[in-house]
Every structure is written in C-alpha cells, then in structure tokens.
C-alpha cells in the first residue's frame, strides 16, 4: 500500500474526489471512529464535567462527530479546503479552521482542556516544498500546541509513522516543547492493525492518562542499550570473530577459524 504522504502534500492530495472517497468509505469511518474512541479513552477526561477540545487534522469531521456524540465541544483544524467543505456539508457542530499545523496553532494560552489528532501528524514529517524544514515545523507545532493547552492538558494523537526515525523526531520535538509522555502501541504483534498513539501531557494533571492494559516495553529498550554496551565491552577476539561472521554471511572469502585467529603476536615476531 502506498502512503498518501509520499504522493502529494495534504492540501493537494485531499481534493474533491479524494475527500469524498475518504468520507463515504464505511471502512474508513469505522476505523476513524474506533481510533477516536480509543484516543478519548487514553485522554481519560472526567465524564461529568464539560470539556473544550481541539481536533488537529479534523478533515471532514469524522472524529468530530464522535466528539459531539460524547458531549464535547470542539474546534477542528485542517489544511485541506475540500475536506473542510465536506465537513460543512455534513453539518458538524464544531468550528472549523483552514490552517497548516506546521505553522502553529493560532490560539491563545490555556484555551483547550485537551487535544486529539487522528491520522494527521505524520504529514508534518514531510517537506513538501524546498523552503520548509520538517523539524522546524514539528517544533513550531508542538510549541504552540503546548501553550494553547491548559496546564495539565493532555494530547493524544494517533499517527502512522513511516519509520522509527519519524517516531523519534516527533517524540523529540514534543519533549523539547515541554510535553511529558510517550508512545503507546496497540496490537504491536499485528502488522495491519498496529496503531501508534502519541500520549502527551502539558504539566501535571489530577487525572492521569488511562494506561489500562498497556505493557511497558522495557525489555526492548534494555536490549538496545545492551547492544551498544556489548560492542564497547567486547574483546578484540570477539570483534574479529563477529566481523568474520558478517563477511561470511555476505559470501566473502574468509579465512577459517582456528586457535590462532585474532591472537596477539609475540613481541619477538
């Protein structure tokens, strides 16, 4: 499956036909609804109190409809005019903004109780014209988002990273902006149903994020450190053997192993 980010910039990709296709597909609707509900579950907002939410990359308002159903007031932002036109046709309840997330969130400090974003922020990792720097855009986005959230405000974003470095750059930018939090991966075993949720908090909050059922990914992190450490700690003999093994795997002609392999030569030699 090709990735839409690689085809065209979002405002070009989601044209009339594409936004119609996207919005009318029951499969997309179903997936979007499921992800929105999961994001709300992670946000863990107090059900009885009213909340003011920001929906980043709201598109045609598929996620916004769920927010309205759940009783939240919201404002949606998207870069595609066609998607927003579809949202207008569907008469969603929230206010809509035509805006580029990479240019920042145009709201004053402390506006929102929480923010969600469904399948949007991976678009920020792409440079669509020569004069943009994805890193800078991510930073601007997270910085302005941080300030537009109330202290203790939370942000949950589902996104489709293309590779680990995208995830890292997103997490890094969020950290620099002052957010705390991390990544939650749903269905990590399944390649198709695997979903990435970025879960961030701006400052301390009385109500924590709902992490029920989440497992710490500690072993993997440990493994990573181990690999680096192992390289540092290995003896020269181990080093030579490892290199020989790699070369053998590549089909190169490698001398046979013997008790003399990687031995130090006597000084008299």
């Amino acid at each position, binding site marked *: 499956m090709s990735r839409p980010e690689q085809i065209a910039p979002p405002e070009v990709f989601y044209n009339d036909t594409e936004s119609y296709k996207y919005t009318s597909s029951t499969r997309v609707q179903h997936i979007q609804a499921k992800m929105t509900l999961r994001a709300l579950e992670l946000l863990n907002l107090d059900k009885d109190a*009213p909340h003011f939410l920001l929906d980043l990359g709201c598109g045609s308002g598929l996620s916004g409809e769920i927010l309205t159903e759940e009783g939240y007031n919201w404002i949606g932002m998207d870069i595609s005019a066609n998607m927003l036109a579809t949202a207008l046709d569907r008469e969603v309840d929230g206010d809509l903004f035509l805006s580029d997330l990479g240019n920042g969130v145009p709201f004053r400090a402390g506006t929102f109780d929480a923010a969600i974003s469904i399948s949007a922020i991976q678009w920020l990792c792409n440079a669509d014209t020569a004069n943009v720097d994805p890193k800078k855009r991510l930073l601007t986005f997270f910085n302005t988002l941080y300030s537009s959230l109330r202290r203790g405000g939370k942000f949950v974003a589902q996104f489709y990273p293309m590779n680990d470095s995208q995830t890292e750059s997103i997490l890094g930018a969020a950290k620099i902006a002052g957010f705390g939090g991390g990544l939650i991966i749903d269905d990590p075993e399944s390649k198709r149903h695997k979903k990435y949720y970025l879960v961030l908090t701006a400052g301390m909050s009385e109500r924590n994020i709902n992490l029920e059922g989440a497992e710490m990914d500690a072993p993997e992190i440990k493994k990573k450190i181990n690999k680096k450490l192992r390289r540092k700690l290995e003896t020269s003999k181990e080093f030579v053997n490892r290199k020989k093994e790699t070369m053998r795997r590549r089909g190169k002609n490698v001398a046979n192993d013997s008790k003399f392999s990687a031995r130090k030569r006597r000084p008299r030699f």
Partner: protein
Amino acid sequence: MKFLTTNFVKCPIKGCQSSLDAFPLKYEECQLAQEEQEYNPEFLCHMLERLDWNAILKVAHDLGNDSLPPTKPEDLDPIMEDDQAILKDLHTLLLETQVVDGKMVCKNCQHIYYIKNSIPNFLLPPHLC
C-alpha cells in the same frame, strides 16, 4: 465561526507571538448569523472562567454590539434559577452567534485573515511561515 472562538484566536505569525496586540484580532466587514445550538449551562460556566472579557467587549464592539455589561458576570451557577437569564443571554451571544463572512486583521502585523463560509483561513504565505 462561533463568537466564543473569537475569544481564543490570535495571530499565528511568529513575530506576533509576544506582542500584546495580536489578541484579539480586529473584525471588519463581518456578516453574522444566528444558528440554534443545544443549551448547555455547565459548559458555559466552564468556559466563563477562561474568557477574556475585555477581548469580548472589543470584538462585540467591532461587530456592532455595545450593549454588553462592562464587567464579566461571575459566580454563575448552572442550576440556579436566578442565573438562567444571564446564562441564556451568554449562550445566545457566545454559541449561537456565528461569523459567516468577513475579515480578521492582526493589530500588530496588519495581516488580513479572511472568513468564508464561517471557516477562517489561517494559511500563511511562504514568506511568513
């Protein structure tokens, strides 16, 4: 765009971030419309504490409404009968009043943002990104 939103929108241009003039934006040549919304007193009270009343007065003045009280109504209770009248008025003003068409001007950098079909356009030209 709801009237309530005007109390939160500011100019996204970098140079205006630290300027006091970037908020609220100045509203010009606006067309308004009334659209019925569900009455939710709890939400109103929740939002009331974070409203900037001076900004509300300024924007209301831009839009041709000078009849608002000069101070923010406070200590409203969503259940109390006495407060219902004020809350209903606030509801009509903040949530049911929509800006359908018009211009928003940043008082600091004079950049004009257009509102069309009640969607404000905050896309920036490349030299301002």
